[in-house]
């Protein structure tokens, strides 16, 4: 099914998310191209971006885009890896409008910058908040809030 995607773009890795969702790893510079292709290409029609989530795997960040196609009733996941320091990638809010807040959330909680994002600022946390709490190396400043009883 995903043959022409593999032809057109450089797929670094491919694996399967439970239950049976194909996940493709692409390089960060390709991400808008891949999503645009998957959205518009008649053999996929991934018309909905379910969500974007980031993941901190100690050495680098992983951003996963979960796409859904109403036409073919299937899902796909596109994953891209970003380096830990100065993580930045292209915004996809021009392709899927709901990515706007998703990317703001990732910026807020992980500190990943999205280039060309219309309104990149903190969303869940207050503007005065320091740090990005979902990073694994994040330490609470307030002693009382830390889970330190063990």
């Amino acid at each position: 099914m995903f043959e022409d995607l593999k032809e057109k773009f450089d797929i670094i890795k491919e694996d399967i998310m439970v239950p049976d969702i194909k996940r493709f790893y692409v390089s960060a510079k390709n991400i808008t191209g891949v999503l645009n292709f998957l959205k518009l290409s008649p053999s996929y029609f991934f018309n909905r971006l379910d969500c974007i989530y980031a993941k901190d795997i100690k050495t680098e960040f992983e951003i996963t885009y979960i796409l859904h196609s109403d036409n073919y009733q299937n899902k796909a996941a596109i994953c891209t890896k970003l380096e830990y320091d100065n993580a930045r990638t292209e915004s996809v809010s021009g392709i899927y409008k709901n990515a706007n807040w998703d990317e703001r959330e990732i910026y807020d909680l992980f500190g990943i910058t999205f280039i060309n994002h219309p309104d990149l600022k903190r969303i869940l946390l207050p503007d005065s908040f320091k740090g990005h709490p979902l990073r694994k190396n994040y330490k609470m400043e307030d002693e009382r809030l830390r889970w330190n009883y063990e």
Partner: protein
Amino acid sequence: MNSVNTNIMEINIGPQHPSTHGVLRLKVTLEGEKILNIEPVIGYLHRGMEKMAENRNYIQYLPVVDRIDYLSGFFCSYAYVNAVELLMNIEIPIKAKYIRTLTMEMNRIMSHLLWLGCYLLDLGATSPLFYAFIEREKLMDILEDLTGARMMYNYYTFGGVKKDIPVDILKRIYDFAKHFPSSVKEYEDLISDNPIFTSRTMKTGILAKETAEQFSITGANLRASGAAKDLRKDSPYLIYNLLDFNIPVKQTGDSYCRYITRINEMKESNKIILQCLDRLLTDENDNEINLKLNPLSIKPEGEVISEVESSRGLMQCIISADGSSNPLRIKWRTPSFYAAQLLNTIAKNHLLPDLMAVFGSLDIIMPEVDR
């Protein structure tokens, strides 16, 4: 002296405001009473649900999950429990599936009833709130006797449900389900044709199908725009493929359609409840409800997407596990988060009173937006 633009007024609605359903803040730009721009500001109810998961093992996180959407906690609970079950590759007993379906549909009715009452309260009518809450109270009492709590159920567990449903509770649910359509009829009599209600809701907040798809809107909001998309039909989970129910769809996508869709959805949920009760009441020998897993032995590995059609739309729980006792990362995809984003698009160029009518009709609930 600087010239001040006296036509345009910026007004803050919320975070403490009677009709923002919790703590949403809207920065609204008005010209007269016409809305030029809305900027939703969220995060006042952020509890760090995703961060909490990293500090807890799987069984510790389970009671917390109900709090993501406290009006319909079973959906969150199911999404999480199902995600772990998928990772561990276990199949739950058939009776547990029925019980989960039953309780989730009860929860959907409860959530819609609360929405109905609060929406009409937003529009200024007081009585429907109480009528809806009277019915909701019956369901809450039933669920309290079943699970031990009124909203934070903590009833599902990995591999099934925690307790069997006693027959007397099934009978109470049956009584409720038999009586419920007449209550819905009453709400419809009171509200549906009322010219004041229709003039407030019809032709306001029109959400086109294309816009809904672009903004990843799901659930009743999408179905009111003419797309018959429901996860329960599209890729049935639990026992939904064995049940007979319809997906209510409306074409126009205005606030009124969303209201009608939700009313009809309650009727369909009621039908599902009756079907589940049929099976649960007839088959009394089947007592296996739980696989009895050791709670501390749950150490799955892999990455999973678990989906559920919650009362507000598509809810996803994405767990990325690394084989330790704590999950590496849990992502909650909550439908209200995307519906809140929609507000500026569909409520623009309306009048200030319409903002509340449109906002209420989207059924946004803040704990779900902020997590």
